[in-house]
């Protein structure tokens, strides 16, 4: 095993109280981020591919929908929800919120969890 291929290679623990990092991300999902937010994002994005949230391109540069990598090669890739995302920034924020819920078990407060 090596770092590149070890799903457990990142040890950062997401602190559900760090809503400041959520706000920083929300302000600029695809921007340049602080070192602490970079660590959080690296942890969110790391892991075994199976089950990973991904965007399926409906129209290049225009429309995307959310799916997950299946457990087995050859299995179908269904969409996980009905939402058609029309910007990558919006998509990034949508996925961030889903992962925050999955990884911290907490729901973001309404005042910082709305759409961009």
């Amino acid at each position, binding site marked *: 095993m090596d770092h*590149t291929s070890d799903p457990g290679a*990142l040890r950062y623990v997401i602190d559900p109280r760090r809503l400041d990092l959520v706000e920083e991300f929300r302000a600029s999902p695809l921007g340049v981020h602080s070192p602490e937010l970079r660590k959080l994002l690296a942890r969110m*994005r790391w892991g075994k591919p199976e089950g990973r949230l991904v965007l399926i391109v409906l*129209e*290049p*540069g225009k429309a995307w929908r959310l*799916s997950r990598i299946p457990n087995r*090669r050859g299995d179908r890739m269904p969409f996980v929800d009905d939402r058609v995302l029309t910007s990558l920034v919006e998509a990034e924020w949508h996925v961030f919120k889903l992962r925050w819920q999955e990884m911290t078990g907490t729901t973001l407060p309404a005042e910082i969890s709305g759409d961009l």
Partner: protein
Amino acid sequence: MIYKTNEYLGYPDRISVPAGEAVRFQLSSKRPSVKVEVLRLRCGDVDASGPGFKYEVMASPLDGEHACLDQPIRPGSNAVIDHDGALVPTGGHWCFGAYVYPTRIADNAKAVLGNWCERSARGYALELDEEGHLVLVLGQASGAPARFTLDVKLRPRVWAFVSCALDLAQGSVTLSLIVPADGVRPAAACSKSFALPQTPALDSGLPFLIAAHHVNGDRQYTSHFDGKIESPRVFSCPLDAEALRVFDGRLRTGVSDAGLVAFWDFSNGISSLSIKDLSPNNLHGSLRQLPRRGVTGFHWSGSVHDWRLSPQEYAAIHFHSDDIYDCEWQTTCTLDVPAHWRSGVYALRLTSGGNNPDRDCESYVTFFVTPGRASRRADLVVVASVATYLAYANSALRLYQVHFETLMEHVLWLPQDDVFMQENPEIGQSTYDCHVDGSGRAYSSWLRPILNMRPRGYWFNLVNDTHILDWLEEKGIAYDLITDVELDREGARALAPYRVMMTPTHPEYFSFSMMNAIMAYQNAGGRHISMGGNAFYWRCGFHPAAPAALEVRRGMAGTRTWESEPGEVHLAGTGEPGSLWRHSGFAPQKLVGVGFSAMINDTCGYYLRTAESEDARVAFTFEGTGRHEKFGDFGFRYNGAVGSEIDRYDLELGTPPHALRIATSEGLGAGALPTPEEFRTVVDGLDGTQNALVRADMVFFETAHGGAVFATGSITYGMSLGHNNYDNNISTITLNVVNRFLDPRPFVMPAKT
């Protein structure tokens, strides 16, 4: 519109075809017919925010509807031995076995050797069941096949000797497993005897197979073995399992071994697709779907890493259930390329025909037309990076890599082609991906559909390269196009007609012939405009016996998604070491002045001129631009001319001493990270905010006999050319270089070199 890009799939029999010659297309669809047109691509990028999808429709005899078959892909490699009944047990005793090193035990039975046919339920074979138990399966004259199973399981990635001794006279069979000692684990062995059925039916009437069973009599195979097999042998005399195992197969003059029916020595002909039988029966065989040879065997000592030095230590073949070299589809249509067609990137456009076509159904098969014998040559030739397109062909990095989303620093966007690959893995993946058993894919061939080498496909490599063609067309610069396959096959002769060669955005994979062809061309006065980044990086080869396949061995260095197993860095096809050209003494710097330094996955950068750029030798480059401009702080898709993968100047690695570093990158950040061979110890300060080696350098130098080289050192450079309707400083300096390089006035190397 959401396009369906995989309703039609296909591939050409040859990836490049000279004008005036023929190319055959193999197409497949669940739809009964396909409408075919031929396009010459100017820009294959459908993203509306770039230059746009631009092409010329070429009228050809292929235009119109063609009947189309639904042609399956059946992956999985194995050996086939025709035997005229010689490998059907007769008489009293029949003993057979092999060393095995299973790399995946799962899903279904994995055949080791035999002639078993699933449909007829005739024949016999050794196999491993879904849990790794050794099984003998054999047919009966009536009723279900008999299966005899050893209680003990084989373990993945542990060498074992499996065997079977049939005593047809006594009606018994003994299955045996011998696991030689390894590391702290002592040797182990077990065996078990069973009574044979009354009327075994051991003759399927079909060839003997290694690593697969027959599905039927139509050359279809199943139960492909994942793992290594070494030295299969068959005897027609009684031998206990250990005696069968230690028979070493070596021939002695004037001696024949009693009872020996066959002994396949895979160390013989490693660079071929033939397997040799050392017995007097000459039961030689052939390999299909390109399993990996030149792999360490049971007897590998660790004292050599090159199979050519001790082939006996490399007497194994690594078979994979998902090996695919040739889909073997029937030809759908043949294009006689008119002699007057311009060379370039071409594609079949495949759509649904009829009176009411589905407008969202649009697929492509890309091929390259090169100048014909009678074609008048342009002064400039673009060399398309087919080896690189193959290395990345059907890349599933976005689907299956642990690190990839962190690397890209955004949620991964999967084109529909990725979804297709997940749902149809038999299409075969790239040399960046791993087989289903976790071992890296060493081969990638064009005799199968390649989804990311098409318009509407993922842009990396081919689609990006067409941005350069688009710019050449826009500027009215006459050019020919050849591919690096011609460099591989014809060497420097392929470049000789041209004053200037141009390599595109990412010519990363180079064979020995390709590298030497360019060096010879440059030294003979040729001019080379190296437009890309991470260029001339991997040492690879086309397989001499499977010439549509590129072979890549990753080695243990470089930016890599898998590593070679210990001792398996040398190519099976040519024997030469794989891995990086840098580690074969021919770093990219030696060829074009710059070589791979870093990957950039956040913000792209731009260039600033250096003091060296004021040298009169390069004054032509910057005409019409300002001394302190930011060069390329813009660009389509990447937003900067310095990005994706970048290369730097290094005298120690071979940059010619007289080379001028005329510009260098600025603006790179924490997401700019060095390639692993650029540091020997991990320390703080490796990223682009601190690391001075994380940079792109723009380099110029003269070569012998009036030649010269200009290198940009960045993949994204080409996507800045079209910015502001092609009016920008990257376009300006590129045009300056092209014009000067096309000018026959010789370049002169400075006196002190």
